[in-house]
């Protein structure tokens, strides 16, 4: 069993996994359904991981012991007085922890990419636990986590998706946009990435230009759906004619900005759905064109779409169509929560690393790498 921690960005998250099975998974905002700030929590405030990390790890441990499924109940019964300890007062927390950590092989933690002060919180906690319970540490790249997200299973071992390497993986989120060949376990080759903005960021910014607040991705998706995702204005598809597989969204941003500037304010608001849909179409079509180019270049037909924007149903549909065209398979994160940031996928990557004995050798000097690449 591995305890994993991810504090790379928005979510304070912890999980316990066994191989690909997620036995317990906690993301802070899910626990408290917390929207204290009203509407949407501002981006950095969300990253107050320091205040939450202990709470989240405790919740993860308690959750695994309170589960009723066969797999974990066996474990719970083995942890002497485990189930009693859950209900009893916090004075038993220490012994509960000790029992729990007897069964933990290693502690996995995200080292990057991400916001430095946020990453630091997770790493500090991992080091602290490793020392206290004499455990090894496994360092995981956040992007590896996303790449493994279609293969993550629930505690019962579902879904049962086998690995058929190689895969062409498109990661699309607020912070990342990249095309990667997933060659074999823990072997990746980046063949394209954004040179300026991430696709999710471009959508957020377009939403803000339309006066729709942050985060804009889901709002744009909903508005676009209301006009059947049609393209009304034909904004440029950035870099689609260039031969490489890199993305750039800054030019599209400029042209959208200028288009709105020339538009009458009333007209702009009247056409808000059409504008949202057209912008989304420009971004998504760029993603599809580049992915298709990558299919042709590499001959790889098995696709995976991962990261926050993979929650968008319309993009999934476009991706399915693309895979169909080339008789390929297409994968998405196996559960909805795996689209966003979470520690479950980090733990699953760590399981494969543990098999290969890839542990951190120098824990003392182990540090975050905010601009880590694959």
């Amino acid at each position: 069993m591995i305890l994993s921690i991810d504090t790379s960005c928005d979510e304070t998250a912890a999980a316990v996994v066994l191989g690909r099975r997620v036995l317990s998974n906690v993301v802070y905002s899910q626990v408290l359904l917390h929207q204290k700030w009203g509407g949407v929590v501002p981006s950095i405030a969300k990253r107050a991981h320091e205040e939450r990390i202990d709470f989240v790890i405790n919740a993860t441990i308690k959750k695994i012991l309170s589960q009723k499924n066969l797999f974990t109940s066996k474990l719970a019964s083995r942890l002497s007085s485990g189930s009693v300890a859950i209900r009893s007062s916090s004075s038993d927390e220490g012994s509960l922890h000790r029992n729990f950590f007897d069964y933990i092989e290693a502690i996995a933690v995200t080292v990057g990419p991400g916001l430095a002060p946020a990453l630091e919180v997770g790493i500090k906690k991992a080091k602290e636990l490793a020392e206290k319970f004499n455990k090894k540490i496994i360092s995981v790249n956040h992007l590896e986590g996303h790449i493994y997200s279609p293969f993550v299973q629930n505690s019962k071992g579902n879904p049962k998706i086998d690995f058929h390497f190689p895969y062409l993986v498109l990661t699309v989120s607020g912070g990342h946009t990249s095309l990667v060949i997933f060659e074999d376990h823990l072997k990746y080759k980046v063949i394209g990435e954004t040179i300026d903005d991430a696709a999710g960021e471009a959508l957020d910014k377009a939403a803000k230009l339309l006066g729709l607040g942050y985060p804009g991705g889901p709002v744009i998706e909903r508005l676009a759906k209301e006009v059947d995702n049609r393209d009304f204005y034909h904004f440029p598809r950035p870099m689609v004619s260039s031969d490489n597989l890199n993305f750039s969204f800054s030019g599209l941003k400029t042209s959208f900005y200028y288009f709105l500037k020339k538009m009458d304010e009333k007209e702009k608001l009247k056409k808000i759905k059409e504008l949202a849909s057209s912008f989304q179409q420009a971004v998504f079509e760029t993603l599809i064109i580049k992915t298709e180019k990558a299919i042709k270049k590499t001959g790889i037909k098995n696709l995976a779409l991962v990261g926050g924007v993979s929650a968008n149903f319309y993009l999934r549909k476009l991706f399915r169509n693309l895979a169909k065209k080339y008789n390929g398979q297409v994968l998405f994160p196996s559960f909805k929560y795996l689209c966003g940031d979470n520690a479950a996928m980090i733990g699953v990557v760590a399981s494969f690393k543990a098999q290969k004995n890839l542990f951190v050798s120098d824990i003392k000097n182990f540090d975050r790498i905010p601009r880590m690449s694959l």
Partner: protein
Amino acid sequence: MKIIKLDDKNVIEKTVEVLQQGGLVVFPSDTVYGLLVDASNEKAVKKLIAFKNRPPGKPISVFSDWDFLYDLVLVSEKQKELLKNLLPGPFTVVLKSKGKVCPLLESEKKTLGVRIPDYQPVNQLIKKIKKPVTATSANLSGKSPHYSIESLLKQLPESKKKLIDLIVDAGKLKRNKPSTVIDLVEENIKILRQGDIVFTQVDTYLSRSEKGTKKIAQFILGKLLKKHVKKPLIFIIEGDLGVGKTVFVKGMGEFLGIKGIVSPTFVVMYEYEVEKSKVDKLIHLDLYNVEEKEEFEYLKIEKYLVPGNLLAIEWGEKVGEIFDLLKEKGEIVYVKMSYENEKERVIEVSF
């Protein structure tokens, strides 16, 4: 607990009557089954919160009507136009509350979520009752919403069922997603004003391309690094969306031998190690998504204000809150970028 059908002749009157008496009603909507109580009745709201096991502090949105929407929340003229185009529809708009509903429904920041659904029965109900009614999904906190009364009742323990006064059954609802939240609350952050900084020199450049912007950035950085500077250099970069702020920082990065700089908007801050230069580290910040002054605390910016570091801050005009700190610990360079036209940019550098 009483169950009536949505096609009952007097369904609206009966529902209004229960709500007026502070009752809790399960009612269909354009998305999922909702839990309705009179939003101005504190006792009824408390009953709702107890029913949902909802943690305190999480706001609950309300159904409204055009007639009294502007009494409930603060709406600017521009936002009025926007709302007219969004509503009725599957959206919850979050705005500053005017305090007309029970405060338990508002967020800590005194904002309120409002819905005008595209759904006749709810619209008729609101028209009749003439006040806001809560619009939260009929499920316990943390559980999925329900599209049929059957599945709702299956989930509920007897103790919860007792709290419900009336159920209006419309059969199986179409499986529409719950409403999407649009946060329209203006940000609350101190913007740097022109008079806040006094500069000795102002240079103006014209860039005709991305390459040009990078070259200008490199020229300026090269010039400044020749001078003996004891403090960390802080580039505050201001300019509209798409004007080339990230390009400018990429230019500086290339001068220092850093490749692969991307926009840090989402992450807020990226740092890059620099080799063989007077600069040790480039700290690339982007304050675009920063909305509250409290957020600066989490960035721990003081830690980076040491000699040898170069800070480049996009949307730098938003540093108002921490400007005194920056001025004291660092050497400020103010870069103002603006559109001359779609291709050309004016870059004004003050230091």
